[in-house]
């Protein structure tokens, strides 16, 4: 069998974006080996170009009728496309903000990029994995590269400690996850393709067995570790505190999005028999995450830890969309992740910038920053306010859609809790904004008093500036001009066959007769046809 034939049979075109990233990765690696340290001048841009090229390639995968590839191992439906876009974009933004950071720490940039690209690759494969082995391999690819990234600051003991802890907890939860999918494998009579598992389970008549339930909980535990849902979140504060900030940014957006992609695919296609149970478990995790994430964030004094806990809370909000099981629920979740990508990474970019200039990330050190660096203050304020859901910023519209979908689906308590906790979250976000803006000059902190002159011409600062400004613009405008993103998120759900039967047969929408819901559906369909 010749190569072209093989490619056609495997439908390998679907992993073209990943192929591009692998090529970029090799280019960076080999280029660095040949040229040496001076390669750091061009490697980040090559990596970003590769990621953007992958995004372009993904654009052409949109609504691909022949999405199954590798004999059922990989599925490139619209759902996976949109998640892969999110992951690739988050990696690109992370690179923008890490150039200066890594340079300043005196470690090699190319290696960092290679590991980050590997992690991205793992995440992207995870978003499309349609088979148990594939799922586990990509899960571990993402995991192991994340451990490496966490420990990247070799000389910093905190970074080492974080990496070790992350590795240990990660290993134990991945063991649980592996156990879960092996149970699934057994129950389905030796089937690894997610789509075939349900049929086999039903055929084997084990859909009421406790084994399936245990498999479900184990799998959820593995995923919850990735998305840092309470009570599987314990690693986050330590790891976020210790690891390099760009890595934290990537973990909180890219890695989480991959986790969510896996959650949708695995739970919807492999566990319809116990859908009631998985909705219940996830609802519990969502409630715990929203409560604990937002309440504990109140007491934080370090900006990094604050964002760590807030990202736990944010994951709780996103899980609302997952729990609903309606089309609008999934769409709102994707929409929120799209917005979260920009606002959270924007926030991290600002923190990195501040840390680079002052060497600290204590919240109290931010006081009076407005006097010295208005751009940074503006961007950080916009991103934080957007995270808190203040209109008319993007985050408000994201939350609005999530809660609206929840209300439509009848999840009143979840929405109510979401509202209450997002009010709590506004408090700690605004506290930082107030600290930066309101303070009189004499109340300025030491760090701000010694603030260096703003100089964007230092090597590696330009990309950071680009990242900050890009996040600022998107976060402020994506809400008002949210229609394209909104349509994108809706179409991603509507064009995904996997999510369609769930809605009509297994998990009927609680209130399909509601006019708003029906209209939304028909309208979005029109939009697709039109």
């Amino acid at each position, binding site marked *: 069998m010749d190569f072209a034939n093989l490619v056609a049979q495997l439908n390998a075109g679907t992993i073209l974006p990943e192929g591009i990233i692998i090529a970029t990765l090799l280019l960076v690696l080999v280029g660095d080996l040949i040229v040496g340290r001076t390669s750091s001048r061009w490697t980040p841009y090559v990596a970003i170009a590769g990621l953007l090229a992958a995004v372009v390639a993904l654009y052409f995968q949109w609504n691909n009728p022949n999405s199954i590839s590798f004999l059922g191992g990989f599925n490139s439906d619209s759902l996976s496309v949109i998640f892969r876009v999110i992951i690739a974009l988050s990696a690109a933004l992370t690179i923008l903000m890490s150039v200066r950071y890594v340079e300043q720490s005196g470690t090699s940039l190319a290696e960092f990029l290679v590991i980050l690209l590997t992690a991205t690759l793992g995440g992207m494969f995870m978003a499309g994995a349609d088979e148990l082995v594939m799922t586990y391999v990509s899960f571990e690819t993402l995991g192991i590269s994340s451990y490496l990234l966490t420990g990247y600051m070799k000389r910093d003991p905190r970074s080492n*400690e974080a990496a*070790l*802890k992350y590795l*240990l*907890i990660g290993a*134990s*939860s991945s063991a*649980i996850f592996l156990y879960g999918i092996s149970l699934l494998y057994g129950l389905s009579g030796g089937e690894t393709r997610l789509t075939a598992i349900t049929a086999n389970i039903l055929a084997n008549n084990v859909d009421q067995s*406790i084994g399936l*339930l*245990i498999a*479900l*909980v*184990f799998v*959820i*535990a593995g995923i919850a*570790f990735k998305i840092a849902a309470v*009570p*599987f979140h*314990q*690693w986050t*504060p*330590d790891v976020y505190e210790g690891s390099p900030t760009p890595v934290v940014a990537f973990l909180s957006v890219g890695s989480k999005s991959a986790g969510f992609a896996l959650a949708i695919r695995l739970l919807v296609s492999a566990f319809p028999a116990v859908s009631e*149970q998985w909705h*219940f*478990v996830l609802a*519990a995790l969502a409630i715990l995450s929203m409560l604990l994430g937002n*309440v*504990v964030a*109140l*007491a934080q004094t370090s900006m990094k830890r604050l964002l760590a806990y807030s990202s736990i809370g944010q994951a709780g909000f996103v899980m609302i969309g997952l729990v609903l099981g309606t089309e609008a629920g999934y769409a709102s979740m994707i929409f929120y992740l799209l917005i979260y990508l920009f606002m959270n990474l924007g926030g991290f970019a600002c923190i990195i910038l501040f840390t680079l200039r002052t060497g600290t990330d204590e919240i109290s050190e931010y006081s009076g920053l407005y006097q010295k660096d208005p751009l940074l203050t503006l961007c950080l304020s916009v991103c934080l306010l957007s995270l808190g859901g203040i209109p008319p910023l993007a985050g408000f519209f994201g939350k609005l*859609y999530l809660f*609206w979908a929840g209300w439509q689906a009848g999840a009143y308590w979840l929405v109510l809790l979401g509202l209450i906790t997002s009010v709590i979250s506004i408090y700690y976000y605004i506290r930082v904004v107030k600290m930066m803006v309101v303070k009189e000059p004499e109340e300025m902190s030491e760090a701000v008093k010694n603030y260096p002159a703003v100089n964007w011409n230092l090597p590696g600062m330009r990309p950071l500036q680009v990242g900050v400004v890009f996040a600022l613009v998107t976060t402020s405008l994506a809400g*008002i001009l*949210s*229609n394209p993103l*909104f349509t994108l998120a809706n179409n991603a759900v509507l064009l995904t066959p996997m999510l369609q039967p769930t809605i009509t047969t297994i998990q009927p929408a609680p209130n399909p007769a509601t*006019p*708003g*819901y029906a*209209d*939304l559906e028909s*309208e979005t369909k029109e939009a697709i046809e039109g």
Partner: protein
Amino acid sequence: MEFIYQYAWLIPVLPLAGAMLIGMGLVSYGKTVNKFRQGSSVFIVSLIGAAMVFSFALLWSQIQGHPPYNRIIEWAAAGDFHLTMGYTIDHLTSLMLVIVTTVAFLVMIYTDGYMAHDPGYVRFYAYLSLFSSSMLGLVISPNLVQVYIFWELVGMCSYLLIGFWYDRKAAADACQKAFVTNRVGDFGLLLGILALYWATGSFEFNEIGDRLQELVQSGSLSVGLASLFAILVFLGPVAKSAQFPLHVWLPDAMEGPTPISALIHAATMVAAGVFLIARMFPLFEGLPDAMNIIAWTGAFTAFLGASIAITQNDIKKGLAYSTMSQLGYMVMAMGAGAYGAGLFHLMTHAYFKAMLFLGSGSVIHGMESVVGHDPVFAQDMRLMGGLRKYMPATAITFLIGTLAISGIPPFAGFWSKDEILGSTFEVNPILWAIGWLTAGITAFYMFRMYFMTFEGEFRGKNDSIKNQLKNEQLQRLGLAFGPGAMNSKELTTDVPELHDHEAHEGHHSDTPHESPATMTLPLILLAIPSILIGLVGTPFANYFEAFIHPPGEEAIAGFPPLEIPAEFEWTEFLVMGGSSVGIALIGITLASLMYLSFKIDPGAIAKTSQPLYNLSLNKWYIDDIYNAVFVKGSRRLARQVLEVDVRIVDGIVNLAGLVTLITGEGLKYLENGRAQFYALIVFGAVLGLVLISGIT
């Protein structure tokens, strides 16, 4: 012609672009841009000029019978909820576009002379342009949401411009007062918009009216509720058009530079309220209760404003109350169903009131060279007098404006006011009587103003009057701040010369001088419509009415109207017109007896009817009542809330802090940094979840 409609969005965008460009320049390269005074003003003026030409083309095309043009794009959609943006060009819009652009254009030319020595010259032009853009955007809005957006924008511009001299305390207070008062109305408007959306599912003007009628007729919505919604919407115009009880901000708004008073607080923005009523006319029309409330509010405001204007000595305050009174006329006309008449008065008033304000600005400008840059002296009519000799162009144009507002034929104001009074009489004679009486008072106070300013002897060098004015001012301040709050010596050194005009040559001349050509030219240009524009709406050949009519009605007579409609009754017109001219003449005669030939001593009249005089002088004590009820009341409330805050909320917060501390302490044991312990929790959680989900 089609292409001018396709590019009609340029009308608001052009001034916006100008404002943005200059604004950006000021923010980033303040010093350099501030030096480009002529350059920026010519730039901004030519942009608004282009918009004006565009508007005239649109008006001409509409007169030629072009059908209304709509252009809508979808802005946001969620489910069955659609938000659209766009613009609509119909008769009403094209007329308003022309009014706004012409007045704005002339005011901007005038500004060059008036603000010539102000350090904020360029900033002022940027604001002016931003305001024009918002106002034009408001006029072309096709739906309520967009109207609301621009409504807030013009409000914001008004705030910025009233407080333009933000280093003057009075200006800073006034802009806040305007803003807060407008908030009250805007909140009502917002509630009204939302309620109407709830009831009808639409933000489009016509759809709302039609659907609401249907709902009311089918009985699914009670008339009372529909009227309530209409009145909520009407609260917006009440605040913006300075109707009782939300009129208090307009006189204070005169702290802003005079071109602003002319453009925003006389000709355009305050008319936005009337414009909105016109836009929402299909809604109000079917609700007699709402119409009655509108008509009575208007009538009362008209009378209130006129009665206060009688005793005002500050020339701008006098004009401000007169504006309020004239706006009352327009609102009354709307409430009486006289759609065309109200808008006709809006148009004529825009021109002659803009001219009067610009004239007063010219007077103040002239006075400042004698008495210095203290608004207490420069704006007080008791120090003026005899100015006609020194500033003839200003005096003649001011006289034309005075005649127009007093309703003397053939000046513009006569035709519009007569039409309002005529249509009101058919609806309710009591309303007519109030309007008629007000017309007399209007003529009286306007001629009082004219005589005090331009006739008689010049009193600008009279020190005893100056001292008296200073004392009065200190007294007022003392009242406002409470006795002993401030050392009076501080005040005397504090008040004058707050904004820097020191470079102004001829500071201490003995006589006022005529203003430069950039100021008199707009006055003369505005005088032309003030005289002639009324002729388009004469009762025997009413071109205006044929052009502007409610959306639901067909034109009364075809367009252009035939010679004289057969049913036109000369006798009725003569009786109506004659009676209003008659009372105006009585007013003028009284004014001339009291302030020109001094046959009657106004002071004596004031003494004999002391309570009435005080009522008028103190603006019916409305400000004091508001101060006692709302300002003090809300302060008291704030104090109580503070108590609650300190005791209960802080208590809860402290408790929460304590809880967080305790949980934090507890969590410390959970977050103890030992990885094996974390793994234990993971396994424990897995076990727990299995158990819980297994049981349920």
